[in-house]
């Protein structure tokens, strides 16, 4: 009796309600040409693949672009430089990166600075090693 009087009408009307609400989500997808100039500037590294992105990812990047406008110029440059790399990560990698970043932020400032210095020195050492091997003339 409960199945007949409760579930059947509920299921029928729930389906209609879900369809309506679901369509509203689908309707949020935007093409590249629909973005404003500042949005296109912030999301320039994603221009060639923007239309293929799922609507939810687009909405997330548009939220990032909104924050982009509040950044100082040097951070805006860093944002654009790193966005393509960020987008190329898998969702699991992005999730891991967020976790690591959050944990790293909780480390005391002195330790954080020490780790940053270490990483930068390692990078500089790698860069100078690469440039010196490029400059070494061949024996033959």
């Amino acid at each position, binding site marked *: 009796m409960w199945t007949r*009087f*409760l579930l059947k*009408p*509920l299921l029928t*009307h*729930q389906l209609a*309600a*879900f369809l309506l*609400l679901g369509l509203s989500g689908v309707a949020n997808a935007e093409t590249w040409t629909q973005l404003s100039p500042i949005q296109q500037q912030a999301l320039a590294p994603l221009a060639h693949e923007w239309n293929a992105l799922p609507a939810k990812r687009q*909405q*997330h990047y548009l*939220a*990032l672009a909104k*924050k*982009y406008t509040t*950044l100082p110029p040097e*951070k805006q440059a*860093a*944002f654009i430089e*790193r*966005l393509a*790399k*960020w987008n190329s*990560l898998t969702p699991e*990698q*992005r999730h*891991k*990166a*967020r976790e*690591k*970043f*959050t944990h*790293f*932020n909780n480390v005391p400032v002195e330790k954080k600075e020490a780790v*940053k210095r270490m*990483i*930068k020195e390692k*990078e500089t050492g790698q860069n100078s090693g690469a440039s010196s091997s490029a400059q070494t003339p061949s024996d033959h």
Partner: protein
Amino acid sequence: MNNNPPPSVSKIKNLLNRSADTLDSKVLTELAATRHRVLLQLDHIKTDTSGLATLRLHAVNMQHEFRFWLGIMIVVACCFAANQGWQHFNEDHTEVDIAILTDELPIDVYVD
């Protein structure tokens, strides 16, 4: 003990009709009047019953309508809650993502 099967309905009817033919007119009139009264009472009960049935049908319809709107409200509430949760989730990620994208250290440091 009588082991014969009970008489059928048509047989009983025939017996009653034959015995009714032997009754005098006064008894027949009384019987007819009683039958008429009983039939009237039955009609009255039927009307009452159909009234009750109509009321019951209305009650079921109202229950149906109530359950329909209750179901719609539950669905809308769930979707609203999910949307709020998604917005909160998204907002948290926005701040962290901006911080990672503008950090001094390369992204690989946080991925590897």
